[in-house]
């Protein structure tokens, strides 16, 4: 295990959404701050900084994780996926994103990136979820606008379309 100097900035090389990137961070810098303010990927949001709300959820090496509970230096050499990488191309949304728009599954949109990153992973693991297990999975995300009903509907709709595709 490498030892880091608390007062020094350390070079971090990683892959984000399929592209190699690098930046510097002190050991104490949160991954959320590194993503947002060093790499300029502001789509990942900060809602609580104590791991409860889920707004900052990204995928680290293929699994969902809270970026606010991760230090930037921990992802040196990792592969990250963030909301900026979800759409297949500019001007075209993914099946999941389209379902969110169609079902009005977002209002202010602040929690949405985290929910999308969790669902993107979950629907690949669980292509045909029942509503109860889907709700249980989404229980790790807080949304204050929608009351969740349209989020659940959008996720079930997206799952069906992905299965039918």
């Amino acid at each position, binding site marked *: 295990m490498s030892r880091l100097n608390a007062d020094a900035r350390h070079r971090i090389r990683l892959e984000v959404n399929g592209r190699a990137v690098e930046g510097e961070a002190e050991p104490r810098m949160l991954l959320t701050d590194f993503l*947002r303010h060093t790499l300029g990927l*502001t789509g990942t949001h900060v809602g609580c900084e104590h791991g409860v709300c889920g707004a900052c959820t990204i995928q680290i090496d293929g699994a969902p994780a809270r970026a606010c509970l991760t230090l930037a230096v921990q992802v040196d050499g990792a592969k990250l996926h963030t909301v900026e990488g979800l*759409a297949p191309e500019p001007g075209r949304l993914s099946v999941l994103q389209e379902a969110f*728009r169609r079902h009005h599954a977002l209002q202010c*949109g*602040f*929690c949405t990136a985290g929910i999308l990153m969790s669902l993107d992973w979950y629907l690949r693991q669980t292509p045909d979820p029942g509503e109860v297990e889907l*709700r249980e999975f989404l*229980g790790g995300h807080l949304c204050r606008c929608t009351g969740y009903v349209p*989020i659940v509907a959008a996720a079930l709709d997206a799952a069906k379309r992905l299965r039918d595709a």
Partner: protein
Amino acid sequence: MSWVGQSIERVEDAALLTGRGRYIDDLGTPPGTLHAAILRSPHAHAMIRDIRTDAARAAKGVTAVITAAEVTRLGGPLLAGIRAPIQCWPIAVERVRYVGEPVAVVVAADRYLAEDALDLIEVDYEPLACVVHPRDALDPTSAVLHAGLKSNIASDRSFRYGDPEKAFAEAAHRIAVAVHYPRNSCTPIETYGVVADYDPWEDAYDILANFQGPFSIHPVIARALKVPGNRLRLRTPPDSGGSFGVKQGVFPYIALMGIAARVAGRPVKWIEDRLEHLAASVSATNRMISLEAAVAADGRVTALAWDQVEDVGAHIRAPEPATLYRMHGNLTGAYDIRNVSVRNRVVLTNKTPTGLNRGFGGPQVYYALERLMQRIAIELRLDPLDVIRRNLVPSGAFPYKTATGGLLDSGDYPAAVAAAVEDGGLAALKVRQTSARAEGRLYGIGYTAVVEPSVSNMGYITTVLTPEERRKAGPKNGAQATATIALDPAGAVSVHIASVPQGQGHRTVVAQIVADALGLAPKDIRVVTEMDTARDAWSIASGNYSSRFAPAVCGAVQLAAERIKAKLSRAAAAQLNVPAGEIEFAGGRVHARHNPDNALPFGRLAAASHWAPGTVADGDHALRETVFWTPPQLAAPGEDDDINSSLCHGFIFDFCGVEVDCVTGELRIDKYVTMHDCGRVLHPGMVAGQVTGGFAHALGAAVYEEFVYGDDGSFRTGTFADYLLPTTMEVPTPVILHYESPSPFTPLGAKGVGEGNCMSTPVCLANAVADALGIAEIDLPLSPAKLAALLPRGAP
């Protein structure tokens, strides 16, 4: 075919779904911007004997440390809605009065360094006795928060409408409830943010903040910064991560960061963290209410006597005590009750100051009123639904003037209730209850009828003043809404509104309205909603609150569109050689009604006043139209303290079936039906979103959420692991029904719909729980621990 009324996809969503939103912390800052962190009080009530900041000032990366000394030298206090010999500052001056009150601000090169330096500030506190419960605030022997007041009662007003004494004397029954509505907040997922800059050469502040309005607060901030309004440029970012009223409460920090930027000589940015937000941003008011009814033998209510003690926390922050007066015109709810007495007291306690929060006064008032209606039924052995029906404002009585001066604009309450009972399946729900009870389960049904006010009268808060004080202060009334429509040199249409959306899709709905008016498609209309007080049309009523978008702002948009359309029609008439009254706009063209081939492309007509003003008659130049609209019904309070506190009044009737677990006390919602009459529905998908979202907020307030304070004023719910928000596992899908009675007072017939369930749902659930457990008294939250303690004896 009209665009309005269709649930078209939102223009906002693609950016938000792809990480391209532009929230305040996404926008970047000017080079050289510094970052602030705030030292906050650990005490609920204490004198500040000394603050030593030398070590912090010398710390790495620190540019400045700001305390009360700088704030009182460079700024002024924050004005409040009542005249009292007390001052409210954006930072603690001489003493702290709640846990989390700002004591010092460190400005440093980054947030990490600023927080490091906070640890180096030493403050000597001398703790004082504190007042936590509003009941104790009424006690003349309790510690006094503000020496200028002599007690903790900041306002005590009594009102009388009709002849309540006579009604009570003649009543067959007097039935009362006493409730204490707890503290909670809608806690948007995005916290507060401010980026402030100060220009010493112009003595002017330029501040970006995720403030939601009302812009009646702008003059308050300008006063606190000691500049005229034209030297406080307040801007908002394009996107906001939710508000629900809460981001009104960022305003003290706008003033504080303005002063920090002035002291530091550089732009200063501050993003609140969640722990700060929960402890010290803002809260809804907690309120003690005693409510008594004079009741006839058949359950008809002939009079109400309200006694309300409103706890606004440690300071009276503008616009408080508005929470207490927002519902004044509809204190009789959905009922035809002609005699009312009211005593309203505002008290100060050692808790976070209160402010806007979804429902704003409604949850508190209806909790008492609708608990009372259930108690009347039970004490008189009547069906609770019959008591509601018997007291409703009758069909055909609209517009109906309430005893306290409200003007209920439209509706048919009995018909809406009948439709809800039928379409919502009440009969089947009663069968479920009967069979559940036969099995020994604790199953209850609750009902609520509510009037949902929208478009606040900017004068209602002056009801707290006596008529004599109001005469001295000058009248306040109305609610200016504004919209601007501009045509560019290529004939494209842009719209600006001052509604400061917080995620509600305003840009989409406005595009629908203007598209309908001008015969275009919504995609042809570009709507901008970020605010800049230096450049945009606005007034004190601007902003995002009191559910004013659909009724007021959309109305102003419609009027602006009609005005520009009238000018374009006259210009087209001259070119097409037909009367202006025969000009029609459709499919991107402008044509003669009886000869559609006699037409012009819209873009060409719309560009004419730029390129060839000489071809357009004077006065018909169609370039940019700004409309200000204020409804005449929103008059100032009268000599008799009658006040039409809101322009529109939607109607809600809810019923639900719940089961309380016989062992754990856990509450399970079996079915929830909510009937809404919000006038004309402009976008059904967004209305459903407002209802469902409001329902979830209400469920949280009813069952899970409470800002808890210890007896010593310590704050006990400072994280999202302590202050519990409902998740997907807790929020069921409500059955939403509609009954449509367009408002005669708004240009499009729409009423507000954003807050109603926060008013109706908490008490509906409480009524159902009271029915399930057979209990007379129940306060929120309906947590499992509380319900378990209330389980009937002999339960398994």
